[in-house]
């Protein structure tokens, strides 16, 4: 029952999250032209939570702040205010700042948007997958490590020989599988998928999405899924939040939100994506 999610079994809780960027001209230019400091509010007081083992999709057009939220949640970017809590533990709040804790970091991973720049081109796939294992000291025995790398490759549908190859020898879809395998390497509980399929062909998209769904089922993963593509979100999400200019304008379980969007902006987003046969409400 994806609809009625109780918030007390939330895995991730985000509340009052905000982030501003300083987009003023350089100091000297401001002084000469008399311009004032300018700030861009990328994320404005956003709160939501994700239930364990479910997928929460953040949708919105580019520049709506979805990626900034994702980066703040995994700790790549510092929020200006708000709190982020994982599994009852605080990852960020205004008093402590970002909590630098490896045991927490290990549980959060990310699959990036571009399959081309997210893998170090000079590293073999085996080394790429080995690195999280080494960084978090998960497995000491080298032989066991190698077996774990092979297991990861197997899990994402690649062959064990692929460990010896370099990223450029793979297609976009395969690279995204490697990216997913790297995210899985540290045994995470939560994965942020930042538009993981937007750079892929439609047919490959479906394969990668199915892989993500299957992994979620097998490993009890919780996903935050960032996308602008309603067709993709429809397949993946249990709950959807719609972002516009850094604000959450509508949030609901996936079914009701797609069938009867309340906010005009949500309706606009739905209409702007190509319809497939059997689509729910018609605009």
């Amino acid at each position, binding site marked *: 029952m994806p609809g009625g999610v109780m918030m007390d079994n939330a895995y991730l809780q985000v509340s009052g999250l905000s982030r501003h960027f300083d987009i003023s001209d350089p100091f000297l230019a401001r002084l000469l032209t008399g311009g004032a400091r300018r700030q861009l509010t990328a994320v404005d007081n956003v709160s939501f939570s994700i239930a364990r083992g479910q997928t929460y999709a953040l949708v919105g057009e580019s520049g709506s702040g979805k990626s900034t939220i994702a980066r703040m949640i*995994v*700790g*790549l970017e510092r929020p200006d205010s708000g709190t982020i809590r994982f599994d009852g533990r605080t990852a960020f709040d205004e008093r402590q700042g970002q909590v*630098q804790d*490896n045991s927490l*970091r*290990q549980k*959060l*991973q*990310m699959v*990036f*948007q*571009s399959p081309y*720049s*997210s*893998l*170090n*081109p*000079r*590293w073999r796939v085996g080394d790429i997958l080995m*690195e*999280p294992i080494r*960084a*978090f000291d998960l497995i000491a025995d080298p032989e066991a490590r190698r077996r774990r790398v092979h297991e990861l490759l197997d899990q994402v549908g690649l062959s064990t020989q692929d460990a010896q190859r370099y990223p450029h020898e793979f297609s976009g879809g395969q690279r995204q599988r490697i*990216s997913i395998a*790297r995210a899985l390497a*540290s045994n995470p509980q939560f994965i942020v998928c930042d538009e993981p399929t937007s750079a892929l062909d439609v047919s490959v998209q479906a394969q990668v999405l199915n892989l993500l769904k299957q992994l979620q089922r097998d490993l009890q993963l919780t996903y935050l899924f960032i996308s602008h593509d309603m067709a993709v979100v429809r397949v993946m999400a249990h709950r959807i939040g719609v972002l516009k200019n850094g604000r959450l304008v509508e949030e609901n379980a996936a079914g009701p939100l797609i069938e009867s969007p309340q906010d005009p902006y949500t309706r606009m987003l739905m209409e702007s994506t190509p319809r497939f046969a059997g689509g729910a409400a018609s605009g």
Partner: protein
Amino acid sequence: MTSPPVRPSEKPAGAPESAPTSVSASISASISASRLQRALASDFVYDFTRAPIAIIAGLVVLFLFLVAILAPLVAPTNPFDPASLNLMNGFTPPMQANMFTGESFVMGTDDQGRDLLSAIIYGLRVSLFVGVMSVLLAMGLGVSLGLIAGYVGGWLDNLIMRIADIQLTFPSILIAMLIFGVLRGIIPPDLRDEMAIFVLITAIGLSEWVPFARTVRATTLVEKEKEYVQAARLIGLGRHQIMWRHILPNVLGPVLVIATITLALAIIAEATLSFLGVGAPATEPSLGTLIRIGQDFLFSGEWWILTFPAITLLALALSVNLLGDWLKDTLNPRLK
């Protein structure tokens, strides 16, 4: 005069290793063979075989390097061994018998009866040693500073790059002379001649780091925004690990080109300093020193003392430069 027999390190190297690890050796041999095959089939090699100038320049550079490395084996005499010199042989023109001793020399002799061919071969050795070492120094320094400036950013970036800017406003030979002078002042007088070569390397190395730093910084700025760096940050890797293990291998491409072009510059800088009398000492003459010595005799008719070292220097610097130029064009994807 007699070169020492086979070096002791050469004998035991191959023998004990081959027996127990023959299987893994053959495996690694087959891997390296396939790697060699792949390397030979690459675009790089293909381009090289299509560029006659690059081939000629490459052969000249290879030849000069080999001659310099094998100097004790290929040089007819050891020009630094006073016992091999005969003052009576002084000023023998090339390919002519000396009027007193009847000896003849391919490239003639200088004022002290030193065989010029041998002097050039040993001088080449000094020039190349100083050139290669100072490029390595400049590269190490420039790549490190560029990487740090690009990745860390902020005031450190400003500091490093402003120093680079200031240094660029002076001709590098001037910087090298300044550093040379300062270092000579620091070193105690009795060590000066022994340290002269290293002072020279330091002076040239410190004067050529800027192009490395600028290029590496620019590439680092691009690389550090890529998602693989964010993925590395995500697993809690520190700055150093990300800089040296992740970014460094990805910024080294253009460095090879700059290193080659800088090698030509460094060789010329060394020759210039030596020509001016502030470089390699007379006890270890480089090509520049030989040219300076030869210059004294140019107008008294002994042209060969100047000409042959100068031609060698020209061939070396030109070939390295042409090779660097070709590398630059080949590795630049925008020119394809």
